[in-house]
């Protein structure tokens, strides 16, 4: 494929996270290299979503650290993660339902806009110019995802598969360096899955975006990803190329269950 994977852009080191007595993650270390597609798999409740939430600052781990672009942090807030260039989608779609597709995508560009409060309030000068510039950028994303026809539709009215696509669009509108996708294909039919796979590969290829994705569909994971990390009960039990992981005994046991 001629794709060059670079140095690690994200390093999660020894992260432990618990909610009261419930342990979600135990000393998980994990890295993502620049330009790579990295999958996280594991049975339900293994801690996959928790790990994404730690990376983008929704959860603060009790132990361990996360470094993004060599900046090591004990505690990141979602706002800071977004500013650093991390965008994400959610397992259960979290769109702004009352707003149109266009407005949802424009929201993705919040951090790129710089006009001040007064100019905004008066919709004056810089604010106006800025809207037009960002609008052009958003139109590129709309073309890329082939959603031109629903541009002005409120997202609440769209079918599920398209909502997923719009959510990806909102993340892309931020021009992220690292894109976190939490089950981007959950609940989709075959055709929608194929479209989504194509978009993920294209994003990775054309924009050079590094991608971390959680997915349950094994054939998708094996086809898309460069490396796969496997979580079970909050621990990482395997990590490596898709083929290695597929043959790993611990992984097979976790998925199929094992006689004790």
């Amino acid at each position, binding site marked *: 494929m001629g794709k060059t994977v670079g140095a690690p852009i994200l390093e999660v080191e020894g992260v432990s996270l618990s909610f009261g007595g419930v342990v979600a993650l135990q000393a998980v270390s994990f890295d993502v290299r620049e330009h790579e597609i990295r999958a996280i798999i594991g049975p339900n409740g293994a801690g996959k979503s928790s790990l994404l939430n730690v990376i983008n600052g929704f959860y603060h781990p009790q132990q361990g650290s996360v470094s993004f672009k060599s900046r090591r942090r004990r505690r990141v807030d979602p706002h800071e993660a977004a500013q650093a260039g991390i965008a994400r989608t959610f397992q259960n779609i979290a769109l702004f339902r*009352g707003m149109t597709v266009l*407005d949802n995508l424009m929201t993705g560009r919040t951090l790129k806009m710089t006009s001040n409060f007064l100019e905004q309030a008066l919709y004056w000068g810089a604010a106006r110019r*800025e809207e037009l510039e960002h609008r052009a950028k958003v139109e590129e994303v709309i073309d890329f995802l082939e959603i031109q026809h629903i541009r002005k539709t409120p997202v609440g009215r769209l079918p599920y598969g398209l909502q997923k696509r719009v959510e990806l669009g*909102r993340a892309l509108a931020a021009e992220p360096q690292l894109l976190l996708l939490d089950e981007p294909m959950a609940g989709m039919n075959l055709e929608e899955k194929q479209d989504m796979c194509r978009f993920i590969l294209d994003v990775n290829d054309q924009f050079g975006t590094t991608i971390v994705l959680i997915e349950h569909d094994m054939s998708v994971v094996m086809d898309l990803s460069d490396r796969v990390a496997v979580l079970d009960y909050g621990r990482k039990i395997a990590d490596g190329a898709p083929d290695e992981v597929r043959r790993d005994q611990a992984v097979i046991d976790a998925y199929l269950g094992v006689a004790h």
Partner: protein
Amino acid sequence: MTQLLYSIFVDPFVQMGTAPDLLAQTLWEGLVSGVLYALIALGFVLIFKASGVFNFAQGIMVVFSALTLVGLNEHGVPAYLALALTVVVMLVLAFAVERVILRPLVNQPDIILFMATFGLTYFLIGLGELIFGGDPKVMISDQLRLPGGSYRIPMLGGYVQMQKIDIAATVIASLMVAALAVMFNRTRIGRALRAVADSHKAALSVGISLEQIWVIVWFAAGVVAIATGIMWGARSNVSFALEIIALKALPVLILGGFTSIPGAIIGGIIIGVGEKIGEFYWGPLLGSGIESWLAYVIALVFLLFRPQGLFGERIIERL
């Protein structure tokens, strides 16, 4: 019996028909008080939309801002400077509310936040009395160059009397609403406000700061409170009794929906006009004074048929 039915269903309309100038006068007065109700409701809607908090303190914010304005002027601060300082005070209040009330209570049930705004109400009453005393004050209409007097406009074979201050109030309220509408629909901050209203976690993930948004909405509600305080204060005077108008916003919100700016405006006007018409034409049947409760009856009837309000979002809970 027929006498009673006649006086309910026929007589009022006969009166309207025979004296259209009086009808026009009543409609105008209804419109003016409706606009003021709408302004108060607008303050509620702004905060409710962005943070899901029903801000009981909106009424006292109106009083507090008006008292600050008048109080500063009494201490020799020129009127316009006092107005600017009042805006600053409301900004400080917005920051304080975010830091002291909203941030520590984030993710708590709505009822807790609602109770917290009760606390804020009594705090502001106490603070206001401590600083400005409990006596009613006269709004500094002249110093602010608000127009006084009235126009007598010949209309429909009679005259309609329009207070200049009422005309000014209507114009200023319309301008504020138009500005808010543009901001909500066209700008980054407006989009961020709507985004926060729709989904907190998605808003956070695109880098919107909830703290900043809360400060902005509380400040916007504060500015709306100042405008309301000046307009209302100019019509009567500035006292803590004004706080009660917050309760008048409730039927307006029920009518218009808690999340809709146009709803607040139209709801306000319906309530204002409904009250005045009811009082003028049907009031005498019940010995007058129905103005004070008619709004709630209108809202109650409305609730039966359209619980989400005229423009509110219909809430469909998944079972």
